């Protein structure tokens, strides 16, 4: 297989969100797309108890040369795809640097401490400013809202993958996406996912 050049090698990407948002699926879909391009992929993710409303993170290491550790070293994320806004900041604290870029879904999921009134969820305006301050580039899209229009908020994760394709850092082909998503998924669902992917692409181009 032909090796494809990457924006950086290894390319370090974090997909983050809250348990139940489809973080793991997003990381596997993207990983498989990269694997189909002949790239070495390592994914590290949080499973189990952390899924129960906790913050979740998948680390993707994409390289044309070798396999890397399933945990990205501190400060070395090139891209953060965030399904939830405050998770963006949490990941930036540990894995961000001045060159890090971010695609952020703007739909908040309130931590239980915010629901109970013990903690404060910052305003979206503040969050945007802070995220911009900590990144080289930040795209904000309302993927959940678009996903609800598509019929199910769970499509938010695929929409973010579509948006990532729009950035152009990685050799992401729609045909690879279709091939990956078609494995073990009924046809109508594949269609809906393709639509979500395309909508994500459109959303990021519109930013």
């Amino acid at each position, binding site marked *: 297989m032909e090796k494809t050049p990457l924006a950086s090698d290894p390319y370090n990407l974090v997909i983050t969100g809250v348990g139940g948002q489809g973080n793991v699926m997003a990381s*596997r879909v993207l990983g498989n797309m990269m694997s189909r391009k002949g790239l070495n*992929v390592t994914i*590290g993710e949080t*499973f189990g*108890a952390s899924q129960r409303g906790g913050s979740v993170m998948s680390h993707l290491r994409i390289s044309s040369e070798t396999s890397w*550790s399933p945990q990205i070293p501190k400060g*070395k994320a090139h891209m953060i795809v965030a399904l939830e806004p405050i998770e963006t900041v949490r990941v930036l604290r540990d894995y961000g640097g001045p060159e890090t870029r971010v695609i952020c879904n703007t739909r908040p999921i309130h931590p*239980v401490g*915010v629901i*109970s009134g013990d903690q404060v969820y910052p305003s979206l305006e503040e969050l945007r400013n802070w995220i911009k301050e900590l990144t080289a580039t930040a795209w904000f899209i309302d993927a959940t809202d678009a996903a609800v229009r598509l019929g199910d908020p769970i499509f938010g994760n695929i929409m973010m993958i579509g948006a990532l394709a729009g950035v152009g850092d990685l050799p992401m082909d729609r045909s690879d996406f279709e091939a990956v998503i078609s494995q073990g998924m009924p046809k109508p669902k594949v269609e809906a996912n393709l639509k979500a992917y395309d909508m994500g692409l459109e959303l990021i181009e519109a930013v």
Partner: protein
Amino acid sequence: MSYLADDRKNETYLLMGNEAIARGALEAGVSVAAGYPGTPSSEIIETLAEASNQRKLYVEWSVNEKVAMEVAAAASFAGLRSLCVMKQNGVNVGSDFLLHLAGSGTRGGLVLVHCDDPGALSSANEGESRHFARLVEIPLLEPGDFQEAKDMIKWAFALSEEIKSLVMVRSVTRLSHASGNVTFGQLPENDSKAYFRHGGTFLDPLEGPLISLPVAYKHGQQQEKLRQAVDRFEDSSFNIYSGPEFPELLIVTSSACHLYSKEAINLLGVEDRVGLLKLGTTWPLPPKLMRKQMGRSDKILVVEEVIPFLEENVKILVAELAPEIGIKTFFGKKEGTLPKVGELNPDLVLDAVSKILQIDYEPAPQAYIKRAGELAAVAAPGRDLIFCPGCPHRASFWSIHNILQMDGRDGFVCGDIGCYSLAMLPTGFGTLKTLHAMGSGTGLASGFGKLGRFGMDQPVLAVCGDSTFFHAVLPALVNAVHHKSNITLVVLDNSGTAMTGFQSHPGLPVDAAGKEAPSIDISGVCESIGATVKVCDPFKLEDTQSTLLNLLEKETGVKVLILRQICALSPEKKSKKMYDMKIDETTCLGENCGCNRLCTRIFKCPGLIWGKEEKVAKIDDVICTGCGVCASICPSGAIIKKEVA
């Protein structure tokens, strides 16, 4: 159809470590696999169970890890290759059998895969199980990446069959639950026949009965097997050295720590100063190989997770070899260069190496790190673990908590292992007061329930899930009934092993492969041993609470309340709302006397939001699963449920 069970030789796929392990077992021609679910090990049996629909293979979720070991051992005794899988705690459960099995020996290749959880990412402890290999004197292998995870399993079967001993293979969360590229080997056709030979003499390992007697003889045999394993380890390709011939610092490592070490060396750019010895055969260590490798440097850093198992074993060998290779300076957990608890990562290894080599390293500019830290402190409120929206456990613990308060005798609940362990936190209203091993809640309750003669009059409760009930609660419950212990066991029956992803268990009408199986009725079992049994739907709060109060006050001896409601994440329930929920904002009392935000301040289902501006509760339609329970707790009837047509 799973591609994992197709031949596809030489093709490369992105596999989760657990899938790679399963593929390795398939490539080794495994016939039987048994295990008990536990993060991070569960996907191995799941993958094989799926493959069993395509290939000649028997896979089961056993009732517990000890039985799983026995089921797998039986296959081995009958000449088949078999695999046994569990998380670290499971090895403790099976360890009694393990010791005997090491003595009796095996026939068909028998491999025990145990997945440790350094840092306890999904465990109640970070205990590890490598030391069992040393304790019972059997070989231990540790894969260092995804390809090895597959290949090493195949090799482990061959080794086991050659030396007629169980072989342990240890994975960790960051391998089992991480993914990487794996190139497939050939899948053999399985034409194995099962037959248990037992007509030979006691001392005949191939034809005689399989027992660990006579002990001294069998023990000697066992040690001989280990010597054979060490011979194979000396030139194993799983032990790899990379780096200069005589580095300033030699890192000795295994498992995922090998990837962290590699990353640290790369980031620091010290490839010409640091050597990396990745060991795949970590017990017993091969002395000839070690003599050659340890001679390379005077400084040795051992990188591993949880207890300093490798470090101690290396030190012993190096001490023995001192006359030949001289005295070494060791770095690692013992002297504190690496943390003694928690999991490692590239940065921790990087810190250790830069300290030893006196290199300055900054992951990002200081100003950036400072600012990001400041912003995260205000912008990223922490996320406590909570029960999912619509989780039956929230309703169950609401009732249990409330009736214990109403009862007013300072009663308490002994917890157990499952999602419901979270009930020690505010999401379960802090209801659980003990949490130990599988089944320990009921065992502890059985003991507490006998302390009445010492003046203890607190009501004693225990909880367990349906899978846990069969795993280890049953013996404790029998104990409690037999000894007339005064306890109430609440079985939180959500029809699945929910915590680990809905694996089957003996209470369900399906097996691991999804085929029909006889289910064992929990209430029938409890009744038959003489407990007073009631069954309620935990979503019916009033019914549950009055039943529980009655059991606590009116009945003596062992009482069992089964709270039956399917897990909100179960495939049959997911994204199906029972009710459409809405809030009548005119009747919502909000922060006023008479409510003070009971739903968002105390009940705290994530499907509820506190509207700070409007001072009323709201429903988050994206998150709400429509279970309807919050309508029952609202004191003013402001939460309205409407049945979904």
